[in-house]
């Protein structure tokens, strides 16, 4: 029940209702245009509509990958190369090496292992806004390190002492799951370069249909997110080693409720296996062509 403290306090709640309310609603609001200019095409719905029919923004179900296509040996001049599309995310990868380390600087495998270096360049036209990235963009360098470390562990670098394996990635188009696409493209290019490795590193992203703080009990995990979904939902990137459940990369930068993490991870790992299947097919097709002697 109400006490005086409230009355006392309520006294400050402004004037009587029937009278002027000078303080009501006077906070300046941000300008927002509710009226769409007539010529623009309507914006599509957002991720909150998932629960209506269990369909995502682009018509996929929760456990479906986008179309993933790849080619291998796309660039004859490189030691290994690949081109990979995950939906509208498109990446070219070339590998140089293993080559003898240059004498200058600290480059080159110090000691008995090869050094893996990764350089990512993101094309200015790849995103929605034309944007030039700074040379030492933090996000890009973090991706480079992540990829380099993952392959350091998987490649048999001890076979190539004092040498460098240089991986170069060019992002032509971005539509989510960028790190995963880069990892997959690297795997293909490294295989093309003939560098021995333990197994494929296959990556994909996994998310959850409701945002961190929403109280949706029945959040579904999602596989392979596109840009819109990445912007609105929590997600992680996971990479596994071949068909095993060994996780070699796991990156998550968004907040997610702990309870949902396990489901997301399980879906992600499962997705990685599907990715491996696809990558393996690409490699095998290429192998068949080589055997037929028609690779050039």
């Amino acid at each position, binding site marked *: 029940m109400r006490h005086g*403290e409230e009355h006392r*306090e309520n*006294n*400050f709640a402004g004037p009587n*209702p029937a009278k002027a309310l000078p303080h009501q609603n006077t906070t*300046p609001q941000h300008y927002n245009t*509710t009226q769409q200019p007539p010529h623009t095409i309507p914006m599509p719905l957002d991720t909150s509509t998932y629960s209506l*029919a269990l369909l995502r923004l682009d018509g996929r179900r929760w456990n479906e990958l986008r179309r993933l296509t790849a080619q291998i040996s796309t660039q004859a001049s490189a030691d290994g190369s690949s081109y990979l599309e995950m939906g509208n995310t498109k990446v070219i990868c070339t590998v140089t090496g293993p080559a003898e380390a240059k004498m200058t600087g600290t480059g080159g495998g110090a000691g008995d292992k090869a050094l893996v270096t990764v350089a990512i360049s993101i094309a200015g036209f790849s995103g929605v806004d034309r944007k030039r990235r700074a040379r030492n963009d933090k996000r890009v360098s973090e991706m480079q390190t992540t990829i380099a470390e993952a392959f350091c562990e998987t490649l048999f670098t001890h076979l190539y002492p004092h040498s460098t394996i240089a991986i170069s990635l060019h992002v032509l188009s971005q539509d989510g799951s960028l790190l995963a696409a880069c990892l997959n493209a690297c795997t293909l290019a490294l295989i093309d370069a003939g560098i021995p490795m333990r197994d494929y590193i296959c990556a994909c992203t996994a998310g959850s249909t409701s945002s961190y703080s929403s109280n949706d009990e029945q959040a579904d995990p999602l596989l392979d997110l596109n840009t819109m979904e990445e912007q609105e939902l929590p997600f992680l990137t996971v990479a596994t080693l071949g068909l095993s459940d060994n996780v070699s990369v796991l990156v998550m930068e968004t907040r997610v409720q702990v309870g949902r993490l396990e489901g997301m991870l399980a*879906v992600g790992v499962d997705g990685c296996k599907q990715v491996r299947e696809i990558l393996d097919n690409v490699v095998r097709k290429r192998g068949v062509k080589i055997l037929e002697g028609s690779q050039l």
Partner: protein
Amino acid sequence: MTSLKRSLASDPYASNISSKVYVRSTKSGKVQKIVRELYLRQDIPCSSKLCTTCIKTAPRDASGNLPPFVLSEKPAGTKKYPQGHYLIPDTNALLNALDLFEQTSAFYDVIILQTVLEELRNRSLPLYNRLIGLTKSEDKRFYVFFNDFRLETYVVRDVGESINDRNDRAVRRAVKWYTEHLTQAVKGAGTKAAKIPAVVMLSDDKENLKKAKKDGIDACSLKNYVEGLENADQLLDMISVVKEGRELRDAKTAEALYEEYFSVSKMMTGVKNGTLHQGIFNVSPYNYLEGSIKVPAFDKSLLILGRENINRSVQGDVVVVEVLPRDQWKEPSTKIIEEETMNKDENADAEEGEAVVTERERKALQEEVKKVHSKSSEGRPQPTARVVGVVKRNWRQYVGHVDESSVSQSIKESRKQQTVFLIPMDKRIPKIRVRTRQAGEIIGKRVLVTIDSWDRDSRYPVGHFVRSLGDLETKGAETEALLLEYDVQYRPFPKAVLDCLPTEGHDWKVPANTDDPGWKDRRDLRGLQICSIDPIGCQDIDDALHARPLPNGNFEVGVHIADVSHFVKPNNAMDAEASIRGTTVYLVDKRIDMLPMLLGTDLCSLKPYVERYAFSAIWEITPEAEIVKSDFTKSVIKSREAFSYEQAQIRVDDASQQDELTQAMRTLLMLSKKFKQKRMDAGALSLSSPEVRVEMESETSDPIDVKTKKHLATMSLVEEFMLLANTSVAAKIYEAFPQTAILRRHGAPPKTNFEELANQLKVKRGLELRTSSSKELADSLDSCVDPGEPFFNTLVRIMATRCMMSAEYFCSGTQAYPEFRHYGLASEIYTHFTSPIRRYADLVAHRQLAAAIDYEPLAASVRSKGKLELVCKNINVRHRNAQQAGRASIEYYVGQALKGRIVEEEGFVMKVFSNGFVVFVPRFGIESLIRLRDLAEPEPESVFDAEEYVLRTSGSRVVEVGLFDKVVVRISDVKEESTGKRKVKLELVKVGEVDTHE
């Protein structure tokens, strides 16, 4: 180098993938081209229970659940479609008549297409949200069909085809598919159910209907469809008149009455450059032709005078204004202008020859201008502005009644459609023009309407009728009107919420076994002498107190608050409902609870003689009221007694009572006085607002009398300890969660707010009001006394209260620490903790405090700043609405209590206009306007001295009325024509004291 080009032929997906390219412009004006993939599929079910094929391929969610099919196998039929039918509305149908779809009498089994949903979302977010709400309700059977993702119904936009045409085509394609699919499904099933429901497209677009006919699909305009239903008349009114009206007018090429709004981009650039200003439009309660808008660029609010300048804005709209040249700046008007007296006899149907500003209005305004010019040299003109555009309409549903004079007598009984004026209860909203067929029936009823549009060529906004609440002045209708007007959620709790209650119901008890998980980390305080003190008849007791001396001479004092967070777990349906309701609303005869009764008045309520879970704040306090240490814990208590304020007071005053409980209360009283003194010394304000209580007859609950509330020492006892608990908890949760603590602040009012009052006091009484700090203000308010008139001080306090800002909840990460201050309580930090049964903010504070003392982990929803900000925003609005609803309810019942009575009573003049004045009657807590024309017939001549705040009349009646003057008024009740409310009417008897000699 090999080619990277994909050969599409080899791609198994190729036919299933399409892409969607669209262009959008961002807020900053950039144009973006966005390309997205579309995966077309064939496993999107039709969701009809008739279909047996779809269910086989229907999708399951991650946990393997199959969403149930929605559309019934035996949908309702109409005359035209006796076999039953499913509806597929297009976007316009929903835009024009969403109210119809929310009806419970018809509009079941509706298929909402993705195309339509998208379009609706872009056109109107509120409507979109309402529609989403509909799709979630089980009994309405609305199904969202994602036609753009289904291979068979996906439509590619042709070259040169407009997006609207493409969407219309998509709708028709979907209708066609549904028809064919259902036919197949029924035939395939081979049963003799055999009745294939028709799939009917609803559209108001003639072109679309024509094409549909050509395609051979069932289509119908909304109007035609509704006419085929049973209660057609009622439903027809709900179709928005926008379209029809426009067609009508196009024919007439009516002349535009108002100026056109600026384009969005022009407004945007203007606001950015600072040449235009954006703010929320507020209408003066005394003058409907005067609005004001507060913008950051000016410290005084901008005035907007006259219909042309107001330019179709309605109270609450977010508008963009242009400031007028300085020579047009004016003082706020000192004249009362009411719409009902100005434009009494307008004809609602008259469309031609209608001017924006009627002759009378023009005259009224001109007088104003003259007055301003005469003394603008030393006046304090306020900047004026005109509205050039509306950014966001804040239209809601309005409660009002039909202006009887606008209904033509001859067709009152007939079913013919006619246009009537609807007068909203809120005086700040203009009359609404409504076309209806039920004019005869809704006269004398409280009705709910919405505004649809306000075109340049119409003097008044155009709206449509939603439903009738009941007869004017019946308790049910008036209460519902009040609740609707203040947006109070009053529907019974849904089942999902009730399911969250403990299954034991009223038999729930604190577990006897202390090993029970409920006892985990709870302190056993059952042995303490705890009691509660509340108003008479209180059922939801959320606080109790105890005090006992400690061996070292100090006291241990505990405040025990109902442990609501134990019962209301975050993120369940009950929590969601409570967070929407935000607060319990107290009306004179009714309480609208935030939580279900079972919790509020039983399980949570700290009733006497039973054990209850509580959240306790326990302090060690020295006899000088210094806090030595404080401690918070979950506990189990057993209240010894539930006192009313009066009982407690009697017991404390009775020296013969020497039991422990009474002693404890005396200790508390002693400490509370010291706390209060400290607060006052720190500059806490003691303000006033008129407080009255309506006495009801116990059986009929008819109001019989009005009493002013009496203040007892025990009231401030409870009050002080609640303040103490709130302040201590605020500090604690802020320490634990510096970014996300829920707190309450009260901003210091800007100096300009007090300018007028300070000037009035100076001129009339030679008193000075210092406002530089709350301490100064408190002191100078204390000195505002009139030895001959004890009430004068209270009057000044009431007026000062109206100059204050309103207190608000906020999330600590959104403000800097100095901004946390509570100006009125002179406290550095403050929150609400002591009433979780009736305020959601307290419940959040409970959860945060529980996490701060490591009792339980913090739920994610109260840890995220964005989420909390939304909660705060909502409960701020709810809190304000609840107060206003409460006051409006008291106002209504005071009117009812005085019904048929005539009393003479003392009052005080609070405000003087050039053609009237406002009198406040403390006995009933009412304030009302007395206009010159109320004084005598014919209206007396008057001279208004704005400097001295005096109104002198001559002629038919000679009186001199000055601000703060004591007057005697005769109080009677009248039904106010404009709002349909029964209101008290004041008549001036004389200026000065009541003559006791006669």
